[in-house]
């Protein structure tokens, strides 16, 4: 991972230099009938940033994610992703935009009628002129990248374990080399070893491709060690946005359980206490310099 770390520095330095905003959400409101899910939410995600959304069950995280990936429309407010206003998007532009991001669904969303290799190769087959042999090789590589054995490619999704399903889904999300990756609960239901593998994988992906990653997660390890910034949703509002050490210092009530529970204490004890710790691996807005190659 040494090379990867150097590459993070390059990637993050470019991000800091241009400070390009990849996702911009402004005054977003979502209502289902009289039930208010989002009440005036605004935030930004910058390029090559790893951004996490947290909040209790029913706090509207998944709805927010669905609104970011064009599966659902907010009641009001603007959402700009990769420079495009999602509200004012034509059908062709929507298709073009959708190719620039990858989504890993919580339950995989793999197609039961196709084996894993074809699931991963599907976006390539659908959207590019590459020949079948190359697509299969690329799909095999993406599978290997997510830590799946080559034999898994021939299996059907019904035969996969939960962890394998997530990895295969991630491989499919990566098929078109997206600029933006959405992960819904990437480590939920995984054993600690696999979950640790996901941590490393997310960092490696950003290092290699300069990916911007938006994820919903409750995994404290992922939050502390991988996420650059964390947004806390509760009561329909964005309670706080910041790195975990910053949130720990701010201590908003909605975040407290993440620090005060027995699990939170354990993770926190393992982490450096200083909120402004420069050693924190990923903070593109703070990383002072890049390592020249």
């Amino acid at each position, binding site marked *: 991972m040494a*090379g*990867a770390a150097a*590459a993070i520095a*390059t990637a993050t330095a470019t991000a800091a230099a241009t400070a390009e905003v990849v996702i911009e959400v402004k005054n977003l409101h979502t209502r289902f009938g009289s039930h208010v899910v989002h009440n005036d939410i605004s935030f930004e995600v910058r390029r090559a940033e790893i951004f996490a959304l947290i909040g209790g069950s029913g706090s509207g995280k998944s709805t927010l994610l669905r609104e970011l990936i064009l599966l659902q429309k907010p009641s009001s407010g603007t959402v700009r992703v990769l420079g495009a206003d999602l509200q004012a998007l034509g059908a062709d532009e929507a298709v*073009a935009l959708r*190719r620039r991001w990858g989504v890993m669904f919580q339950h995989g969303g793999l197609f*039961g*009628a196709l084996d894993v290799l074809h699931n991963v190769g599907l976006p*390539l087959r659908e*959207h*590019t*002129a*590459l*020949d079948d042999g*190359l697509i299969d*090789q*690329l799909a*095999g*590589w*993406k599978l*290997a*990248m997510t830590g799946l054995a*080559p*034999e898994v*490619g*021939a299996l*059907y*999704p*019904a035969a996969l374990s939960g962890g394998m399903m997530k990895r295969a889904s991630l491989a499919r999300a*990566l098929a*078109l*080399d997206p600029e933006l990756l959405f992960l819904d609960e990437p480590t939920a239901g995984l054993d600690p070893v696999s979950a640790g593998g996901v941590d490393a994988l997310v960092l490696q992906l950003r*290092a*290699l*491709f300069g990916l911007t990653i938006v994820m919903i997660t409750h995994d404290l390890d992922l939050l502390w060690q991988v996420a650059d910034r964390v947004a806390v949703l509760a009561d329909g509002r964005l309670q706080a946005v910041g790195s975990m050490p910053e949130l720990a210092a701010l201590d908003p009530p909605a975040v407290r359980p993440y620090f005060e529970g027995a699990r939170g204490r354990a993770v926190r004890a393992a982490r450096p206490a200083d909120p402004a710790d420069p050693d924190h691996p990923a903070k593109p807005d703070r990383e002072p310099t890049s390592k020249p*190659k």
Partner: protein
Amino acid sequence: MIAPLTDPADLAPPTADGMVLSGRWTVAGLGAIGPRLAAAELPAGSAAVADASRITGLDSAGAWLLHTLLQRLGQAGHPAQLQGLPQQFNALLATVAQAFEQRASQAPPSAKPGATLLQRTGAGVVDAALQGVALLSFVGECAVAAAGCLAHPRRIRWRPILFNIRSAGVDALPIVGLLAFLLGVVVAYQSADQLRQYGANVFIADIVGLSMLREFAPLITAIIVAGRSGSAYAAQIGTMVVTEEVDALHTLGIPPLDLLVLPKLVALVIALPLLTVFADLLGVAGGLLMAQAQLGVGPHEFMARFVKAVSATAFLVGIGKAPVFAVVIVVVGCFQGFRTHGGADSVGRQTTRSVVQSIFGVIVVDALFSVVFSALDL
């Protein structure tokens, strides 16, 4: 298809100095460069060098192709050298090289040889036989569960029974009524010409009455219900299997057959004969209407002949078949539902099977009834 870019991936014809690569080597920019890369050869004696300084974009697909090219152009284990690749792409190319090494160290998964016609036929026969055995054992399990319920009437679940009578019976009234009426019209219409030739107009009551009551009403009702409710049974149970709801029932100590199959069975055994009576009525009504319109046989005349021509036996024979059809539809629908495994795909397949097999079953049973009834002179 991704729109072509202004600067797609390109390679200049190789010269003695090597080859020059340019453009965007990304999924959008690669386009149809594959065959040209495969055909590219360095002239003999030239340096195995590729100049990449004009590559403006590189993603994993591009890096993969690039690496493949370098490997192929190089000699005996030494890949061709790449010069001037913009440095932000180095990490990606190194990762590809690593992936290539890993792939080489792993034996490629051996492809299974395709089955021959004989093998496939054999497997098909074995599958069909196994399915037959499974169906028999399912019937047995249902019988045991039904006997258990009869022995302990408190185990009988009345609410699902009533719910199923409504969904499979009452809700099916409009479609069953409409189709039976139309069938009556068609039978009368087709017979009218023949009868008119012989001046036997009034026998329209015999034809419509006997054919509707004995055959058409029970059969059309059963076929509609098989398509309507049989498919619903298979889809419901299949989805429950996929979402582990059936497993949950097992662990909660609720026998799935008690909850999912027996109520449907009881409900349809009650509802299908009643639907058949309804279809009888509307079918005869359709015939009566056409008798008036085509043959000038009035309602009074029609009914007077109908009473003489159609015995109670004909009516009972038709109604008596309905419960048997009901059992066929429920057993096949539920059986196929429980055989679902995997995901959405399998639910669809099992649902189709349940409809095809239950209609098949209904018609076969009807044919058997015809043989038995004619042997018994009914």
